[in-house]
């Protein structure tokens, strides 16, 4: 009985702690024909993964949207309004994998992305590099902002603000400490604190 329990633990995909200072969640859009970049300075990521146990692997990420920074205070203020992210009513975005499967080009997760109360299932191909000291997870996906009601009404014009938004994820994951309960959630950086004045 005890042996069986240990065996079950041994095959469960481990949960990795996120190294906040070296991880990033960035996005890139276009405004009037010019690319701009932004980041979410905070996110909670629970990364449970084993390459040989895709069924037991899950990513669960919550992004407090007020941590958004597009290096332009006017644009950030606009993105907070009801036409865009509507921070007041939808303070968080979430990302949850529902399945993972191996493809010819690598592992692809099916994930539910919820922004502004709208959920879309996306294909999330990612690169996992495991090492003794932890692992890195890199991914890049393109979202259509209108799928999530971002920039509605007159803002919908693709020439003014491009519909396609490229999201780049880089997670640096620390070593899984054997025999310890893995850190289920790691709060990255300062969610509740004001952004540094720019």
């Amino acid at each position, binding site marked *: 009985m005890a042996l069986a329990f240990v065996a079950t633990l041994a095959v469960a995909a481990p949960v990795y702690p996120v190294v906040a200072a070296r991880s990033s969640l960035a996005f890139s859009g276009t*405004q*009037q*024909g*010019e690319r*701009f970049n932004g980041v979410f300075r905070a996110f909670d990521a629970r990364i449970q993964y084993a390459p040989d146990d895709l069924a037991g692997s899950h990513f669960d990420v919550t992004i407090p949207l007020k941590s958004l920074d*597009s*290096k*332009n*205070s*006017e*644009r950030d*203020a*606009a993105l907070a*309004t009801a*036409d865009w992210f509507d921070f007041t009513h939808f303070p968080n975005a979430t990302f949850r994998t529902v399945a993972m499967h191996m493809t010819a080009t690598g592992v692809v997760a099916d994930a539910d992305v919820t922004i502004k109360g709208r959920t879309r299932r996306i294909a999330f191909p990612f690169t996992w590099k495991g090492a003794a000291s932890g692992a890195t997870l890199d991914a890049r996906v393109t979202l259509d902002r209108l799928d999530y009601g971002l920039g509605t009404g*007159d*803002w919908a*014009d693709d*020439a*003014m603000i491009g519909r396609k938004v490229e999201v780049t994820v880089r997670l640096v994951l620390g070593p899984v400490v054997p025999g310890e309960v893995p850190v289920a959630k790691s709060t990255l950086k300062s969610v509740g604190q004001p952004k540094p*004045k*720019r």
Partner: protein
Amino acid sequence: MALRSTAGGWGSVTRTFHWGMLVLLLGIVSVGYYMTTLPLGPVKLKIYALHKSIGLTLLVLAILRALWRLSEQRPALPVMPIWQVRVAHSAHLLLYGLLLLMPLSGWLYNSASGFPLQWFHVLNLPALARADPHLKVLARSVHEIGAVALIGVVALHALVALKHHFIDNDVTLRRMLPWRGDRF
């Protein structure tokens, strides 16, 4: 009317610069004041884009006009006191300076704010500086004070031209009018 100015009067190129830029200036100043009153929205961004496009046009025109002005002779001034000649030269130099300062400070303000810069949906231009809140405040102040100064100097310029025409009864205004030939 000749293309180039002569000792007797302004050429058609100079007159076209003069009145064309005045029309654009009236437009950009009106748009500039109107756009700041708009609520945040795509309309505001489009009006700002128009302001920036006209501003870039005026920057190119100001450079071309300055080069043209340096390359040709200018008509003789009417007989007037030396202090008026000096004031006239200083005011015209100030006008050229402000015509260059306004688009450049606007461009800098735009860059320091982190906004894109596009000329009439045709051409995107690089930022003059990285996004910087301190530079943004400085560039904005220069742009706003410069606007008031430019309006003031242009108004003075127009008043003095009318004074030459109606009080001194000389050719100063007439020889710049677009519909007049070289004969006065």
